[in-house]
């Protein structure tokens, strides 16, 4: 057949289904949408303004540091790690997401819930866990020693950092891709199969191209997270650029130099963004005008692949959930000292829960206008908004926290160290997570649906509410869950910007592990992991109630 490009078949099917494209789109975006997006974009850029201000005071020392040969090596390390972790996360997540969203895999909901738990493991805890479990004197080594295993592969260095970050960030991709698969119209795949294409060809030529925006959005989150990570790379002894930034805060207390170095990360983020723009595909939408959704009857039977598929899920859960839980449990067992303080746990859990839930909901609400704008209107107009959303996301948490300390104390002392500024800070840091999900799922809604609604007399806002929002529910939920879980484990912002005396599970874990009180930290970590299961449990109860 004459389908030369990879998207050829997809495009042809799409055209066939919609019977020719119509464009009813008005010339420009509505003013309220632009204004709201503008406010969000400016808010999220605040840390960059701070960086520019601070870096201006860095002087020649900054250039001396940047121009030494080692800088190139460390930058290369950072970029290579980010690329490898992203590749690893995508490789794990796409099959897993397809299995839970599209196949008849048993216990899909349980797997889904468990598979996002690793996101709640703070990066440095992940590092401790990996060393404790797989390190030179770790649990696995001791188990294998009687069997004659002298040495495990080296955990320190690139390999360990890669493994740790991949295991604890892949859910970013998993959740976005799963939401995308759920929002995808199965008609195209069914058509492909009915045309005699095999399951694999259908996946490669129909499903995968449609997933590109979602994979790119999730991959972007993983890449930028890796760039900004300090906990895992420092414990696993891999030298990255973020580590250098921390050294300047901690070694010489030099905020100016640290800010100057952080600006380099912003430049890298720009490059990553450009790459992402290219990799996510050029189509301006990926849905069909029917607004159809995959449903239970559309599930692909796994047949003899059922066992290997279950083993894959189990393997990932064993490594990323069971291994941390066991390692942490071992800390508790090996303890001879005081029993941990359980009485503080409910209070800590409640504090953590409500700020994270607030951040999750608000992030979705605020990301929606920007995501709608950038998904629906021409890129030359909306690209600045998209860049604004992501630019600060590659920065280490401490940089964001200090920038808001500066603005809070000096510009808005009335809300400094209150929950208002704390949650605003969470939003500034984590909004991109909700944005990426929402944008990917808005792209799946065929504009023809909205155009039909508009032509029937509904207002722009009415259309958004009645047509678009219900269809992007999956992406909104996934985005909200991501923000919720990453807020659970957030540390520098909570420590510096929370009201005095405000503690969360994450600050408690940090406080205890920082001084080596691992046994006391163990129950807090286990509760943290438990709390991260809540959103999926809640969603499940909701679905069960409704479906019953």
């Amino acid at each position: 057949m004459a389908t030369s490009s990879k998207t050829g078949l997809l495009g042809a099917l799409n055209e066939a289904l919609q019977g020719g494209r119509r464009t009813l789109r008005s010339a420009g975006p509505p003013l309220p949408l632009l204004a709201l997006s503008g406010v969000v974009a400016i808010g999220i850029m605040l840390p960059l303004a701070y960086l520019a201000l601070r870096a201006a005071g860095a002087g020649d020392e900054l250039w001396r540091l940047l121009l030494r040969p080692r800088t190139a090596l460390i930058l290369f390390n950072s970029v290579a790690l980010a690329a490898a972790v992203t590749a690893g996360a995508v490789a794990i997540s796409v099959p897993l997401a397809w299995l839970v969203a599209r196949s008849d895999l048993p216990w899909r909901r349980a797997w889904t819930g468990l598979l996002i738990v690793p996101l709640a493991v703070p990066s440095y805890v992940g590092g401790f866990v990996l060393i404790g479990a797989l390190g030179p004197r770790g649990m696995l080594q001791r188990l294998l020693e009687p069997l004659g295993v002298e040495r495990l592969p080296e955990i320190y260095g690139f390999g360990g950092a890669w493994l740790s970050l991949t295991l604890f960030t892949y859910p970013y991709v998993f959740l976005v891709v799963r939401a995308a698969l759920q929002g995808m119209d199965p008609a195209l795949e069914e058509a492909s199969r009915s045309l005699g294409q095999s399951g694999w060809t259908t996946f490669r030529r129909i499903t995968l191209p449609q997933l590109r925006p979602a994979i790119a959005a999730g991959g972007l989150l993983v890449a930028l997270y890796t760039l900004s990570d300090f906990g895992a790379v420092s414990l696993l002894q891999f030298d990255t650029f973020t580590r250098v930034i921390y050294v300047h805060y901690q070694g010489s207390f030099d905020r100016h130099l640290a800010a100057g170095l952080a600006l380099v990360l912003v430049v890298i983020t720009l490059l990553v963004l450009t790459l992402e723009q290219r990799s996510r595909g050029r189509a301006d939408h990926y849905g069909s005008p029917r607004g159809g959704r995959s449903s239970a009857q559309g599930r692909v039977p796994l047949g003899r692949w059922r066992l290997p598929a279950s083993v894959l899920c189990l393997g990932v859960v064993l490594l990323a959930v069971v291994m941390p839980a066991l390692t942490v449990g071992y800390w508790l067992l090996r303890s001879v000292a005081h029993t941990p303080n359980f009485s503080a746990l409910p209070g800590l859990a409640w504090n953590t829960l409500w700020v994270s839930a607030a951040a999750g909901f608000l992030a979705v609400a605020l990301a929606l206008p920007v995501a709608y704008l950038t998904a629906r209107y021409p890129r030359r107009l909306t690209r600045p908004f998209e860049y604004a959303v992501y630019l600060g996301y590659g920065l280490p948490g401490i940089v964001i926290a200090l920038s808001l300390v500066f603005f809070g104390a000096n510009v808005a002392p009335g809300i400094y160290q209150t929950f208002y500024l704390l949650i605003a800070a969470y939003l500034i840091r984590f909004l991109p997570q909700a944005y990426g999900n929402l944008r990917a799922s808005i792209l799946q809604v065929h504009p023809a649906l909205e155009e039909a609604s508009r032509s029937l007399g509904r207002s722009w806002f009415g259309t958004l509410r009645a047509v678009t929002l219900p269809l992007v529910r999956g992406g909104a939920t996934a985005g909200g869950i991501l923000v919720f879980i990453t807020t659970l484990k957030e540390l520098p912002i909570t420590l510096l910007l929370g009201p005095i005396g405000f503690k969360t599970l994450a600050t408690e874990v940090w406080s205890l592990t920082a001084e080596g009180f691992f046994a006391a930290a163990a129950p807090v970590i286990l509760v943290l992991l438990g709390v991260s299961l809540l959103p999926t449990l809640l969603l499940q109860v909701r679905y069960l109630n409704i479906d019953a």
Partner: protein
Amino acid sequence: MRMNRRTLLKSSLALAPVALGAACGRVSVTTGEDADTPAAEPSTLTVYSGRNENLVGPLLEQFAQDTGTEIQVKYGGGAEIAATILEEGDNSPADVFYAQDAGALGALQAENRLAPLPDSILDAVEPRFRSPQGLWVGASGRARVVVYNTESVQPADLPPSVLNFVEPAWKGRIGWAPTNGSFQAFVTAMRVTLGEDRTRAWLEGIKANEPKVYPKNTPTVQAAVDGEIHAGFVNHYYLFRIRAEQGAVPAENYFPPNGDLGSLVNVAGAGVIAGARNVAAAEEFVAYLLSQPAQEYFSESTYEYPLAHGVAAHPDLPPLAAIETPDIDLSDLADLRGTLELLQDVGLI
């Protein structure tokens, strides 16, 4: 059915700001005054602590109880808290900064964010443990030691000085934390006493011995306990914490004799913030850290060296007087920067 789900989503979205408002409102009842006018609570002392709550929390509570002072504490990492006070500038709610090491106090001192302390407080400790400008005072001391694994190293095999760890016998057996503040203070001391060239030679010598690199003290000591390394350069008290939690472990501290650099004493201490709203209570707090009960607390609970009132160190430690420290200003940032540059040149950070 679909309608139900939609309504649920919408209503939960609509409820979010309400819940948030309620939660904020609920809390601002307790900090009510704070939200409008940050200066409105003169009776409460605000402490910013770079020291860990699990170490000094009980002591701070004891202070509140003994003196009847209302106290609120912001805990965080030492460098992060110092940077926070600097970013807050004149609007800082902090009255006093309780720091983990002299460098953090020096960062505040260098930007004129500390107020002079009265002589009565300063004189409680030896001059080597306080700011030469009288802007901060050390309350407890920590010595640099070599922690070693007793299954792999016999005491007789330990060299007389840290300088000897460059010998080939130690190849692949050492752990250190070049990015850690206490390690950097130790390198600073070495630069002051031995000069740049010998310090560089030592750093390069250790580097050639392929040491394991840890982010800070705790993982280094744990690695020595686990036998992952045979010896590590750390602060003395981490081993005691690990013993308290894990019981008897195959590791010991080695204090190199005769005032060797390996046992430099650094301090944790406090200073009053310039422009503090609550100067009297802040000074009372700093004085309390030097009081007999507090000094005994350090000796018994944190295994640190008490610096005032002749309180004796923990019986497991060599007496403070036996450790000679080089004559350096522990908070001198010019020196810290030089150390950082040297570490960068050698390619360690």
